[in-house]
């Protein structure tokens, strides 16, 4: 029975499975490709992964937590990094500036969420409006182009192994270590699965909220800065990264209801999406067909990978007794500890 299987299977399996299937299809469709298809996929994946990791932390901090400002912050980060880098002549300062910008934007969300008590989705929506206003102002009469050295590094792939991807992989490992081995990580997941309970257990939930949103903002801006250095800054650079980051995180097996974060899954989801786009372009599907297929694939992966305990689906602070009510979901909770 599926349940029993799922006991064994780690939550990120499905995303990688999907990615591999798409990869195989790609090879089948085009007689050629070899390792380069993978190399190039790993060249563009890291940016989405960085944004996804931030989004993942936010989402696993509890029901209703989501950061819809990533797209605009991403673009903003790109513009600022290039502009500052151009003025100061140092790409390091450029990235630093981008990080600072992401931090500032995220602080707006944090203030709105914690002090003004605005639901995250609306608070971050407001933030993204503000971010895009700043981007637009910046873009007017914008000067500057990416630092050649950084750009070189970003597309540098010795033996077909993209160096930047390796860096982000290491970062991903650090994130999962953070979640597994550190006290903060544990406290974050505790808040994620039951905020009230965690608070009574002595966890400072506000601290967690501040942490996840700031991280998400900073990562988005940083990813934007790097992406812009990889090609060129642009006010619309980040637009695709909002929906994709959410989809990638959930396909990766992170619980939308919080309490379970799966960093590895973010890679799986990102590769799946990127390879899928490649495949669809390859077989020259009409844009319409591409979307229908993409949609059904997302639903299908969900269908297989699902098993989020019904406990507080959507959002659940007001759903007592769920575990007792929906016994069938119990075994699906078990493997997560």
């Amino acid at each position: 029975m599926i349940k029993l299987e799922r006991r064994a299977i780690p939550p990120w399996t499905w995303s990688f499975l999907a990615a591999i299937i798409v990869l195989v299809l790609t090879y089948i469709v085009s007689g050629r490709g070899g390792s380069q298809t993978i190399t190039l996929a790993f060249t563009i994946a890291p940016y989405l992964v960085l944004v996804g990791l931030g989004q993942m932390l936010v989402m696993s901090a509890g029901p209703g937590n989501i950061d819809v400002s990533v797209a605009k912050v991403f673009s903003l980060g790109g513009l600022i990094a290039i502009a500052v880098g151009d003025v100061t002549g140092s790409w390091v300062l450029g990235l630093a500036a981008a990080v600072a910008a992401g931090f500032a934007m995220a602080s707006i969300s944090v203030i709105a969420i914690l002090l003004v008590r605005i639901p995250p989705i609306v608070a971050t929506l407001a933030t993204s409006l503000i971010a895009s206003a700043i981007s637009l102002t910046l873009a007017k009469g914008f000067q500057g182009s990416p630092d050649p050295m950084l750009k070189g590094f970003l597309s540098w792939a010795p033996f077909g192994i993209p160096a930047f991807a390796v860096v982000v992989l290491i970062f991903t490992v650090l994130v999962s270590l953070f979640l597994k081995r550190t006290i903060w990580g544990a406290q974050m997941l505790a808040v994620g699965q039951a905020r009230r309970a965690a608070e009574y257990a002595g966890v400072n939930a506000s601290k967690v909220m501040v942490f996840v949103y700031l991280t998400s903002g900073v990562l988005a801006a940083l990813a934007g800065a790097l992406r812009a250095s990889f090609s060129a800054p642009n006010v619309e650079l980040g637009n695709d990264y909002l929906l994709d980051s959410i989809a990638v995180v959930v396909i990766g097996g992170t619980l939308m209801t919080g309490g379970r974060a799966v960093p590895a899954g973010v890679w799986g989801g990102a590769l799946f999406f990127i390879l899928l786009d490649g495949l669809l372009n390859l077989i020259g599907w009409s844009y319409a067909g591409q979307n229908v297929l993409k949609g059904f694939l997302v639903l299908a992966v969900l269908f297989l990978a699902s098993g989020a305990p019904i406990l507080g689906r959507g959002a659940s602070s007001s759903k007592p007794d769920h575990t007792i009510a929906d016994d069938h979901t119990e075994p699906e909770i078990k493997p997560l500890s």
Partner: protein
Amino acid sequence: PAMAADKPTVALSNAFLGNAWRRSMITAFEEAATKAEADGLIASFQVSNAPGENSATEQIAQLKALLLDEPDILLVNPASPTALNPTLQQACNMGIVVAVFDSSTDLECVHIVTNSFGDWARLSTQAVIDGIGGKGNVIIARGVQGSPPEIEMYEVQTELLKANPDVKVVGEFFTFCDSAKAQEALLGTIASLPEVDGVIGCGEGLGAVQAFQTAGRDIPVVAFAPSGRALKFWGEGNGAPGSVAVMSDPGQGVAALFTAINIYNGQEVPRTTIFPPVVVSDEERDQWIAAVGDDEIASWQWTQELVDAQLKANIDGMVAEAALPPVPVR
């Protein structure tokens, strides 16, 4: 219109400000309009950019707010070729001179000022075909899916390719004429493609070249966007020789302004007037680089005289031969 004597008030409705083209268009317009106001051609002008991501509904709301002001001339750079029709109809009914630019509409009462996307496609495609010496593999990078310009351009491209049977199409994606999207689309598929000699497209050359560089492939002949950044990049020797930079002219807004003023003053003007796109070839490239800011798109600097000339060419039906405006200088 009734009192051709007194000067018109002008309102420009722009759907969004999200990309370099629209910004250049607004900049060019604001410069020209301020000058026109000073020269006493218009009474006053108002530029309004709808919030949101090029959303038709936002622009409709914005247009209706503008209609409350009852301007004499309404210039529209629309979010969608059809969605505004009912609203624009209302404007016509109020006796406002309505001119749509950088797009088209089948609304009778509206004047259309536009570039010939056919020309754009012809110029860029031909350049690439010549660049690769009339034979080889090409990719077609297509524009904004479903937009009338893209459809018009695609027709021209296909017929030109028919005329050159040695040019083989090995791939075709929608890149929205956006260099970042083109880069991702290409990186996603490049490995599965044979040798590529040229990329026929609508100004995503920058991203295309970068994708090929990343993949360590030979750089094909491409069509850049005439943006400061792309021209510089091109000038630094990226992009195979024979590449070109073509794009519809952000100066259209200005052209539309002067055209509309003429209409308001009772001059006879065809419903649709064609203006030339901006073309940058190897020779003039460095001249243009000097004139264009990094995040700007090169645009013709239309003046009333130039516009009148172009209008005349339109009326005489000899647009093709009409002289191009001079390369602007900074």
